[in-house]
C-alpha cells in the first residue's frame, strides 16, 4: 500500500530525515518511534503531501506521490491542531469526505462523532474546542472517508484515557478493514498494538522490526527503544 524508498527531507541546510526506506501493506500497522525532533512528524508530513521530499520517492497504492489518487487514498492526522477555526465539527467531516470524493459518509460521520465524544460540540466552531477535542476531530476527519492509508501523528497527545482507548479501538478496526497505518507516538503502551516498529536513530530509521520479536527479546517496547536507540 505504502512504499517508501530513500526518503530524505531537509529544512534549508538542516537535514531532518535521512534515507528512510520502509513499506506498509494493507491491514498492517507500523509504529515510528524516536525522540523529539528526530524526523517522525516530518516523515508523515512528506507522505501526506504537505511538504515535498528533498530526495527519495514513495508511492501510495501504486500512485505517484502528490497525485490526486494518492491524496484521496490518505487519511492524515497532523501533530498540530489541524483544524479550521471557523468551521463546525460537522462541517469538518463533510469537507474531508467531499475532498476524498466519498459519497456515503453521513452515517460514518455520525458514528465517529458519537464514539469520539464530539456530539456536544459538533455544531460549535473548532475555535471553541479544547486541544483534546481538536485531536479527536482531526482523528474523525482522517477516518470519515475510510481511506486505505492512515498517517497518524501523535493521536493521543492531549487526549484523556477514555479517548486513548477509543482511538486505539478505531485504529484497530481500520486495520481489520484493510487500512495500512503509520503511527507515531510517545505512548509506548499504545504502540504495542502495531504489527511492526521502527525506531529513529539520529535522523535515519532502524527497522521495521516485528513487534512480537522485539517484545520477546527485550520484554517491553521501552527497553527495545532504548536498545535500538543506543546501538
Amino acid at each position, binding site marked *: 500500500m505504502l512504499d517508501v524508498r530513500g526518503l530524505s527531507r531537509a*529544512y*534549508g541546510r*538542516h537535514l531532518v530525515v535521512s534515507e528512510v526506506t520502509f513499506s506498509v501493506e494493507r491491514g498492517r500497522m507500523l509504529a515510528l518511534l524516536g525522540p523529539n525532533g528526530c524526523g517522525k512528524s516530518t516523515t508523515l*508530513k512528506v507522505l*501526506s*503531501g*504537505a*511538504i*515535498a521530499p528533498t530526495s527519495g520517492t514513495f508511492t501510495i497504492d501504486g500512485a505517484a506521490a502528490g497525485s*490526486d489518487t494518492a*491524496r*484521496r487514498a*490518505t*487519511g*492524515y*492526522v*497532523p501533530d*498540530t*491542531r*489541524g*483544524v*479550521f*477555526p*471557523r*468551521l463546525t465539527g460537522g462541517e*469538518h467531516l463533510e*469537507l*474531508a469526505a*467531499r*475532498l*476524498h470524493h466519498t459519497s456515503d459518509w453521513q452515517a460514518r460521520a455520525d458514528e465517529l462523532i458519537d464514539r469520539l465524544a464530539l456530539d456536544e460540540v459538533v455544531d460549535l*466552531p473548532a*475555535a471553541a474546542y479544547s486541544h483534546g477535542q481538536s485531536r479527536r476531530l*482531526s482523528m474523525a*476527519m*482522517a477516518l470519515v*472517508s475510510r481511506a486505505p492509508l492512515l498517517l497518524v501523528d501523535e493521536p493521543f497527545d492531549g487526549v484523556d484515557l477514555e479517548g486513548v482507548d477509543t482511538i486505539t479501538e478505531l485504529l484497530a478496526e481500520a486495520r481489520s478493514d484493510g487500512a495500512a497505518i503509520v503511527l507515531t507516538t510517545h505512548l509506548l503502551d499504545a504502540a504495542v498494538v502495531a504489527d511492526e516498529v521502527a525506531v529513529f536513530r539520529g535522523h535515519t530509521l532502524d527497522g521495521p522490526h516485528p513487534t512480537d520479536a522485539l517484545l520477546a527479546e527485550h520484554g517491553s517496547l521501552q527497553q527495545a527503544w532504548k536498545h535500538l536507540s543506543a546501538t
Partner: protein
Amino acid sequence: MGDITLGLRHQLRNSWRLSRAFAIGAIVMTLLMHGLAILVAAMHAVIPTDTVTVEAVLPLAAGLWSALALLPALGGGESDDPMALTAAGAGRSFRFGARFASSLTDAGPGLFIPALALVGAAVAGWPGWLAGLALAWNGLASGQLSGVASAILVTRIGPTLALIVVAAIVLLSATVLAASGVGPGAWWLSATAQPAYNLLLVGSGLLALAGAWALNRPAELIVRPARPVRIPRGDLAAVVVTMLVGVSRSVMARSTIVTAVLTPLLVASAGAEVTGSIAFFVTAAAAAVLGANGYAYDGGAAVWLLGKAPRWYLLTGRLITTALWALLLSVIAAVVAALAGAPVSAALLPQLVLVSIGAAAAGLVPSVRRATPTDFNSFRSQPAPVASALGTLSRSVALTVVVLYAPFGLAALAVLGYLVFALLHAHIALRDPIALAALT
C-alpha cells in the same frame, strides 16, 4: 472542477463568518460603486468629459492593476493553516479555489474592481466600462500568479528575497503598463476604443489563472537559524526587546519594508509626481498592518502568558515597538521618495514621529480585543479580520491627515490625546485578555 468550487465555497464561508458586518458593507459599497460606473457609462454620451483623456488616467488604472496584482503576494486575504488543509485532504484545485475566493473577499478587490470600471466609464463610456472590468479581471488573475510565485520562491530563496523579487516583477509590469505598447495597460488603452482588445486582457488573465492552478502548492514553514539577541534585565526593556525581535523576524513586517520602498517607486513609474507625503501614508498603512494583526507578531501574547509583565509594560512595549517600526518605514519611504525626485526636508521628522505614534496607537485596542494568530516564518495564515484592519487603517489615516494639515501644536495635542484614550481603553480591555490567551 468540483474541488475548485468546494474551495471557493469554503473560503467564502470562512470570510462570511470572520466578519459578517464587513462583508455586507463591502457588498453594498461594491454594488453602489459599480452602479455609479454603469450610470457614468450611460451618461457619457450626454455629458462628454473631453477634458480628461484616456492617456491621462492610465497611471491611475496602472496603479489599481498593480494593487490587485501585488496584494496576494504581499499577504492580504485569508488563507488556512496548511496542516488543516492537508488533514482535510485538500489538493491543488481546492487550494486554488480557496485562494481565489480569499483574494475576492480581501479589502482590495471590492474597491479596486468597481474603481477600474468607473475610471474606464468616465473616460470612454461603455467601451471604457468593459475595458475597466477586463483590466480588473487581468489584475485579479495576475495576483493569483504572483501569490503562488511568492509561495514557491519563499522555500528557495527565503521570505525577504522572495518578497523583493515578486514586488520587483510587479513594479516592472507596472512600468511596462504605463510606458510601452505591450502589456495590460496598453491593451486597456486600446480596448477603450476597440473592444476586441478586451479578449487579450481576459485571455492573458486566464493564462495567469491556469499558471496559478498548476503551480500552487501548500504554504510551507521556513525554518532558518536566527542570530541570538540578548534580553536586557529591566522589565520594560526586556518586553520591548522581545517584541522588537518578534516583529523584525516576521515575514509580514518585512513585507511592510518592501511596501515602503515600492510605493514611491510605483507612484513615480506611473508618471505621477512623487511627494514626501508618501512617507506619511506608508507609515499609516504599514503600522495598521502590524497593529491590526495583533500580539502574535511581537510575541506579546507569550509575554503576557508568562505573567511577569504588568499590563502597562505590555501596552507601552507594544506602542514603542510599533511606533519605532513605523518610524523606520517612514524614513525608508522618505529616502526612496527623495531618490525618486521628491523634495524631502529634514523638517518633516517631527511630523513623521507624530504620525508613527498615532499609527501605533490606532492599532492598540483592536490588537488586544481581537488578537489574531499570524505566521512568523512563511507566507501567511489567518491574518487580521479585514474589518479590524480597515478600522485600524482608517483611524491611522485620520490621524495622519490631522498631522499633515493642522498646525503642529494642535496635531500633537490630537495625537497624544488619542494615545491616552487608546492606552486607557486597551488597559481595561487587557484586564481579561481572552483573545491573547487564545493565540497559544
